[in-house]
């Protein structure tokens, strides 16, 4: 799928659809629609979730789903306020997301509801609880 087709497809589920260069689409969705959006992508045979990125933006945490769409890459953003860091798991849509969501939980403290295996992935066994290394407030 090229960028225009991807942009057309995602427009129903997201705002601020922005085409960057010839190969990338950035779009912002919200908590009501992101599951629908990802399911719609899967139903269009876009099954490769490249990764999930979490970015600490101060008051919010931005979660970006990077989906490989053949010729292009879709970056679907979801902003969460730090007071309400809970999302639904997407492992039933993209089974390959299982490690990325574990990563998100331990590095940024986002709660993923319904995750089949919410254990620690990278951090050592004696890592203090409630400290999320990729948060901005964590300094050396």
């Amino acid at each position, binding site marked *: 799928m090229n960028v225009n087709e991807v942009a057309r497809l995602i427009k129903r589920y997201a705002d601020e659809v922005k085409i960057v260069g010839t190969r990338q689409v950035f779009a912002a969705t919200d908590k009501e629609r992101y599951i629908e959006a990802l399911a719609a992508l899967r139903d269009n045979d876009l099954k490769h979730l490249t990764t999930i990125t979490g970015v600490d933006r101060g008051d919010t945490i931005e979660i970006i789903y990077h989906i490989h769409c053949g010729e292009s890459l879709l970056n679907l953003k979801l902003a969460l306020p730090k007071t309400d860091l809970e999302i639904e798991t997407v492992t039933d849509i993209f089974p390959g997301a299982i490690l990325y969501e574990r990563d998100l939980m331990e590095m940024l403290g986002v709660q993923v509801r319904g995750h089949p295996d919410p254990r620690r992935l990278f951090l050592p066994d004696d890592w203090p609880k409630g400290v999320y*290394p990729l948060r901005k407030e964590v300094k050396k």
Partner: protein
Amino acid sequence: MGLMYFFRRKSPWILHFNTGGCNGCDIEVVAALTPRYDVERLGIVRKGSPRHADILLVTGPITRQSRDRFLRIYEQTPEPKVVVAVGNCPTSNCVFNGCYNVVGPLDKHVPVDVYVPGCPPIPEAIIDGVLKALPRLGR
């Protein structure tokens, strides 16, 4: 002691342990086994168990999670043992200095006998480091 030292010096057995390194040194350690460098001609044999080893080759900065495992392996290695720090990471943390999960360098945790600097050191340097470590086995 004299006879055992003679044998150990003629054919030291090596255990290689990665404490969180990037793999660059590890592949150079393995490259030292292969035809161009071929350390087995010098009697140096690589082993899988710390209980068989005389020399511990350590690569990588020490990460929090691997520290305890490394200390256990260090204790399992019988005396006399020699520790060789391969690469810049166990020597000085290299580029990983200041990372939250790195608790190195190696000499903070165990005594180190030989340092082989380089990122990564070439196989010749690693072999030379091991040979320099041999007299320390007779302590």
